């Protein structure tokens, strides 16, 4: 999806090339074509394309990928802030 670009240098995606076995699972499940397999190792081709959905990390058989997944809607993030500030949320979860 070259047409849509979100903020650069924000993704928490991290790949441990040492541990990678080059199985190609990350390349297959990523909805943004972030990975490619090169010389039997996964390579992050497009880090800024990552939306942190967590599919790659969840499916890496050797846990070589780390990413903090989450829901990217403002109402949800405000809730987590409020929760972090110790405020109890009484309203019916305004989740996205």
């Amino acid at each position: 999806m070259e047409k849509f670009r979100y903020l650069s240098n924000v993704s928490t995606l991290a790949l441990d090339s040492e541990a990678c076995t080059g199985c190609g699972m990350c390349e297959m499940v990523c909805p943004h074509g972030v990975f490619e397999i090169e010389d039997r190792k996964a390579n992050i081709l497009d880090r800024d394309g990552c939306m942190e959905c967590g599919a790659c990390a969840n499916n890496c058989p050797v846990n070589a990928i780390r990413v903090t997944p989450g829901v990217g809607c403002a109402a949800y993030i405000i809730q987590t802030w409020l929760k972090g500030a110790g405020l109890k949320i009484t309203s019916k979860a305004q989740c996205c």
Partner: protein
Amino acid sequence: MKDQTNINDPASGREPGLKPIFISQPDTCSTDSEVCCGPPAGPPSSPFEKPGYKILGFVDRFIQTPAGPIPKVKTRTGLSDRIGTIMVRLGIGRNEYKIAPGLYCIGNADSTSLVMVTANYKLSFDTLRNHLDAQDAWILVLDTRGINVWCAAGKGTFSTEEVVQQIRQTQLDKVVTHRNLILPQLSATGVSATRVKKESGFSVIWGPVRASDIRHFMEKGMKADKIKRLVTFSFMERLVLVPVELSLVIKPAFWIFLAALILSGIGPGIFSISSSLSRGFIAVTAFIFGILAGAVAVPLLLPWIPFRAFSIKGALAGVMAGLGVALFFMDDIQIIAIMGLLLMTTAVSSYLAMNFTGATPFTSPSGVEKEMRKAIPLQGLAILTGITAWVIAAFKQ
């Protein structure tokens, strides 16, 4: 209750020879020789009807399997399905639009047919079966609490545990002889193929992102092209989201409108009903345009509005909308009131556009949080300054 189906099930214990069941009982009151009062009686009840249950319109008939009777569903969606789709797209009854989880089938599914896994959001289920016309397959519907595949995977209801649980509950291992499941690719966020294999013995094959590519995927020997593994966000895909975005702001908007009417009445004479109505009308109009800018214009014009941060895209659209409103009411209000209106439409539009990140398939939560840290204080400041300017303007008239 659990074993009841097996007691009445003539095929239980038999080899998996999945024969469809046809209901052919003689009609008692429709022969010409008999005299009936009123119109002739309809067909008898299906043996699959149970007290307190209703057989849904999309069920064609039931087929017998070693795991009990399984509903065979139609691959063409009917009028009521389409009306349902329109309703949920408008945000009506969206949280309750679900079907019972479990095993369904289409075509003449047998023990060698493919198993497709999907969510129990009826729109997801309808989309899948619609694209499986003339195919023979099993559809394993998970209990995602009526949430679509990708969102459910993100929320953890379309999960490894749920896949394993449904395989066990439906006794899928008795229904099919192979051990493969086709999962929608976007469920990978919640499902680990390795763990499903370990815990159920079934191998996960990642299907395409879109149900519309499923046939092509099957023809290509269960392989999706690179392009079919990527998400898109076309104009139409954005357009269908707009009504739901609007339906979500209706409730808070009502209170904002009320507040706008009250604030607009404040003036030199403490409170004036006529000014509440006349100035309030202008303020409410400005808010409506702010909402339209953030929840309609930004989603639709997304790729053409400059800047990447949604709050800035929204602010730009909000300024344009505010200027339009100000131009329209220019003769009625002062410059300070115009400034107030502009600030309010900008803030409303900016916030709504920022919230739209939750509905897009490409924004990362880290990015959203980053822009929110900067944008929310500014939006708050703009609202407060806007309200102050609007109220002060009333005293200057």
